[in-house]
């Protein structure tokens, strides 16, 4: 059980998937020769050649559109969009084409593509390089959305995403690329749609996904000495998401917090709260609290971004509120 960096874990998943299936191809901006702006695709061009690992021009709409056409014609493309903010240019291909093809063509085809893209702040990249837009994709029938929280999950979830017959948005986190985590190459695959109880607890449940899971764990750790026992559920995928696991946890703790880095309003957390306050109505001993970014663009300056990003203190405050 070695420690592996998040970026490397993603790289290993790509490597394994390409070795296992000649239909897997990669393309994106500076992913081949340069090995990716974050080094995620390093070495793959050398190993799999320039037929299967390709640098593209700066043409996001066509990169993703071409991935859809390729996926309908026998390939399993894994395309990279350098920052999640840039998917704004490629939404037609994902939403009107990839997401709907199977349904609107009567089930004739699947669209096995993966769009890899990093979201999130924390590196002072400013308003156009930090957004968390996963809620958009989760709202679109036909898409799956996966957001791993650590290297091992990133590896296993990406393999699942590539093997998945349907289009998957695989959300990475730029601040996490250099994060190291325990890694067992032989660990079992993760079924997309199954959450993971990252920490067990009895008093309150925090549901989260992506890097924010680590914030939740940090908060839980801080609260432990105060005899507040926090359960942390890592959703791992938000479309589909694991209602049953969240409900089961809520049914034990009777208190729920949903945490994510994205802007709170109209974010992923809203759906989780809406659903749990419906099917979990009788379980709730307190209102469900959401912790997320305030309703403003991600600011550049360090001090602003620090105040902007939800942190363990915010989570602890929410825990105190639901326990009050």
């Amino acid at each position: 059980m070695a420690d592996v960096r998040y970026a490397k874990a993603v790289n290993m998943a790509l490597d394994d998937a390409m070795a296992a299936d000649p239909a897997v191809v990669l393309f994106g901006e500076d992913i081949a020769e340069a090995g990716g702006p974050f080094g995620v695709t390093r070495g793959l061009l050398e190993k799999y050649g320039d037929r299967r690992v390709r640098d593209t021009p700066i043409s996001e709409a066509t990169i993703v559109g071409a991935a859809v056409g390729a996926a309908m014609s026998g390939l399993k493309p894994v395309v990279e969009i350098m920052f999640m903010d840039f998917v704004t240019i490629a939404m037609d291909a994902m939403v009107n084409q990839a997401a709907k093809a199977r349904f609107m063509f009567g089930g004739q085809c699947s669209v096995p593509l993966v769009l890899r893209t990093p979201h999130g702040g924390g590196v002072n990249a400013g308003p156009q390089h930090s957004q968390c837009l996963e809620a958009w994709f989760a709202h679109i029938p036909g898409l799956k959305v996966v957001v791993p929280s650590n290297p091992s999950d990133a590896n296993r979830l990406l393999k699942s995403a590539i093997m998945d017959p349907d289009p998957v948005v695989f959300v990475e986190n730029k601040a996490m690329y250099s994060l190291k985590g325990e890694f067992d190459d032989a660990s079992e695959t993760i079924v997309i749609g199954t959450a993971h109880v990252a920490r067990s607890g009895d008093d309150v449940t925090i549901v989260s996904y992506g890097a924010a899971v680590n914030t939740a764990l940090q908060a839980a750790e801080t609260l432990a000495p105060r005899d507040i026992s926090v359960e942390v559920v890592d959703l791992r995928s938000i479309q589909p998401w694991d209602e049953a696991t969240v409900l089961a946890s809520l049914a034990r703790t009777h208190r729920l917090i949903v945490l994510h880095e994205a802007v709170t309003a109209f974010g992923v957390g809203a759906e989780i709260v809406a659903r749990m306050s419906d099917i979990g109505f009788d379980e709730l001993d307190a209102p469900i609290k959401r912790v997320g970014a305030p309703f403003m663009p991600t600011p550049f300056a360090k001090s602003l971004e620090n105040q902007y990003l939800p942190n363990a203190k915010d989570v602890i405050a929410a825990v105190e509120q639901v326990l009050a």
Partner: protein
Amino acid sequence: MSPTKSDNSVPISQLLEFYERMLLVREAENRLSKLFADGEVPGFIHLSVGQEAVCVGVTSALETRDTLASNHRGHGHALSKGVELNSFFLEVMGKEEGICGGRGGSMHVADMSVGMLGANGIVGAGIPLAVGSALAHQVQENGAIAVAFFGDGALAEGVLHESFNLAALWKLPILFVCENNGWSEFSPTGRQFNANVRELAGVFGIPSAFVDGDDVLAVNEAASELVTAIRAGEGPYVLECVTHRVRGHFEGDPQKYRAESEINSLPDHDPITKLETIISKRRIPKKEVVAIRGTIEARINAAVEAGRGGNAPDFSRAKADVYTAVEEV
């Protein structure tokens, strides 16, 4: 216009085949027009009446394994690529037995088994799809090519530029077919696009041909040449076909924006009439032509009946197709 092979060099059997294939598209659409007016076809439909020489001329140069991405005016592309007539009508009439289970209708007819990757409701969106399909052919080295059909209005969309660039860079096996009918909905494209598709392609190093899109022989000859070159690994080509949209942008469009003189001149451009003239010059017995007309009519009648006889689509079956069913392990 590139010079057309002397009509006499085209075998009679092929003339008749072109005729039959064009007539199929024409009569299918004429019937759809009626069905639409009678409320038997829901939604809105865009007819390609007058443009049949393009789809028939191009697809006659293709093989089944070749793939085609189309646009909103895609009936001709679908039928001439080989979508079965009954399941086509069933689809456009919104029935369970339709090729897409009645979920897509006119704007989304697709049939993977014949390489028809779908009509498309988003102007320009089929172009990168075809680029991706060509990439798949190239990577798989399967000898197939991809074709993108798009109108002159789509030239203004940025994905065209991006797709020309990518196809040229990667030397992809793709034929870009621009059906230039002069109109983008209710506006003359000349007021919307300040360039020319062939010159644009040229800037990216993509060679092109230009044909009279009312002349199925010319279209087919040009397409055949380009397809051969593409299949030989020469990379992308553009084929611009000047053609004429006879009906409104969609059914129900009264076309008040078109000059009377233009409307009056449309019959002169009719690709089917033109082919009939050629056929008559070749002294093909009239009865053969009549027989073809009869066959087509019968097939269309049967398809309409099939369409009418189809069932309303099943909601839960539709819902089950949002994602691919995976066997539980």
